[in-house]
């Protein structure tokens, strides 16, 4: 079954280039959108398997669009493809539920591979993102137990190896684990980050009394 992809980017040259590259490699590009708001409108109609999402866009940025799309289509997976690597934005999109992150200068083959892995339910999780996520959990720890989920010692270990550029295969060898187990650890880390985000939002809502009418 071919993977249904939606490409969201405000630069027309990129949008069309990425769509063409993916199409030529046998993926089914079902829609494109030029900003986050348009993406959130179009996505429910075309129900893509994977959304390839830029971060800095007018109207609604990548993080906002990710949250909006996943709200309606929980089974769709979002792969962030960003040029600027603006760290706050990357982390924001991942916290909002994005399943992976790739720098725009990645080769076409890397992009296709990343889209296919994302569709297969894997987390496309490079060293830069691993460093950000690791730092984010450390910050939470420093600020003294925000009540959200914490990483296990093994998860931290795996995350550090990813941040040092090691492949899952190599990490598995080093730790004497199966490749599958390493993948699971990585995905758990992402899930915990997204869960922590939800815990934080809920706490914020309670503190602000926004839940008063529920």
């Amino acid at each position, binding site marked *: 079954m071919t993977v249904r992809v939606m490409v969201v980017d405000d*630069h027309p*040259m*990129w949008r069309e*280039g990425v769509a063409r590259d993916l199409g030529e490699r046998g993926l089914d590009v079902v829609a494109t959108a030029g900003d986050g708001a348009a993406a959130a409108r179009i996505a429910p109609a075309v129900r893509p398997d994977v959304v390839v999402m830029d971060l*800095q866009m007018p109207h609604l940025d990548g993080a906002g669009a990710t949250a909006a799309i996943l709200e309606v289509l929980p089974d769709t997976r979002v792969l962030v493809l960003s*040029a*600027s*690597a*603006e*760290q*706050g934005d990357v*982390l924001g999109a991942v916290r909002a539920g994005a399943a992976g992150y790739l*720098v*725009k*200068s*990645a*080769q*076409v083959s890397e992009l296709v591979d990343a889209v296919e892995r994302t569709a297969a339910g894997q987390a496309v999780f*490079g*060293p*830069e993102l*691993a*460093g*950000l996520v*690791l*730092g*984010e959990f*450390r*910050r939470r720890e*420093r600020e003294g137990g925000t009540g959200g989920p914490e990483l296990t010692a093994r998860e931290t270990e795996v995350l*550090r190896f990813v*941040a*040092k*550029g*090691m492949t899952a295969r190599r990490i598995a060898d080093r730790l004497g684990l199966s490749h599958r187990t390493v993948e699971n650890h990585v995905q758990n880390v992402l899930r915990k980050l997204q869960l922590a985000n939800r815990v934080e939002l809920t706490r914020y809502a309670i503190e602000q009394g926004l839940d008063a009418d529920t």
Partner: protein
Amino acid sequence: MSIPDTSGTVPVARRRRGATVDVHAALLPLWRGLVVFRVVALLYAVVNVVRDVGLYARPALGIAVLVLMALWTLVTSVAYLRGADRRLTVVDLVLTVLATTSTLVVDDPARIGAGGPVITTVWSAGAVLAIAVAYGIRPAIGAVAVSVGALWFTRRALDAALLSDAQLLLVAGVAVGFASVAMRRSAQRLQEAIATEAAAAERDRLARDIHDGVLQILALVRRRGPQLGDPELVRAAAEQEVSLRRLITRGPIGLDGPDDEPVDLGAALGAALPARAVLAVPPDPVCVPGGLARSLLAVVREAAANADAHAGEDTGLWVLLEDEADTVTISVRDDGPGIPSGRLAEAADQGHLGVASSIRGRVAELGGTAELVTAPGDGVEWELRVPRQQREGAR
């Protein structure tokens, strides 16, 4: 007490702009208070005149002065609330003095001599307070002097009543003048802070937009590289893309400052590492003293150069920066052939101290530890762990 004068540090244009609209808005509460005082004082004067009008030498003139006072109250109230030119307060004071001294012709000299009230009563304080709001403390004191002088000129008696009036006027004038100066200053500071922030935000937005566009093109060149057939151009574009991306992501570095000036280690690493290195950093800046940052960068450069020398410049190079409560950790890893076990010990035994001990020694000087993990075919990894704050005297 003195209030620091900011006029020397603030550009004139910005002060001017702040002084037109926003200062009036900042002083509006004082003007409102003044208007309320004036109206109440006018009612008191009316009661006073109505009670005494039968005793006046020229009752009709007394009524006329009262009507003029009422009209003037109306005019100044509207004008002050609308932010009229502050020179109006000087006209206000002159007219008030005239109204006060008109008592001389309106009232019976015998009554005045016996200590009877002037026709303006407490209403005359309004003009003094207006000067205080408009001009501040010193002009307010001047206005008090003028006002008290007019009272003395009218009543020709330096009695307890006059001194008491003078004291009350002085206290009120200085207090309101002080409030006015303080409110004006804070309004100006707020205005300046808003302007600075807006300028910075605009600059950021511009920088992001421009850089974003340039990055897109550089990334496109890099991505289309194989089809372009000019490897030199593609390599140059790739390097520029990485360094521009690092610059935007982390901002400027400022490594040239004094040893104790904080430096973002993430930004410094981004600038120091070759473009092919993949750099992983935490989301927030990792600030350490500049001296420590420089020493660490030198060690990281040595480790990276060593990787180049032994594994070649085509091998992967990864650098991870971690920020823990008391320590920072920098890991430098390559995926080259690695070092066979025993080689290092062998080299040390033969008296070749080499790179490894140099790195260990430099990190130890910083009060930290350097751990080497390597195996044949498994690359070389350095883990440098140093305390954030250097111990006193450790150099």
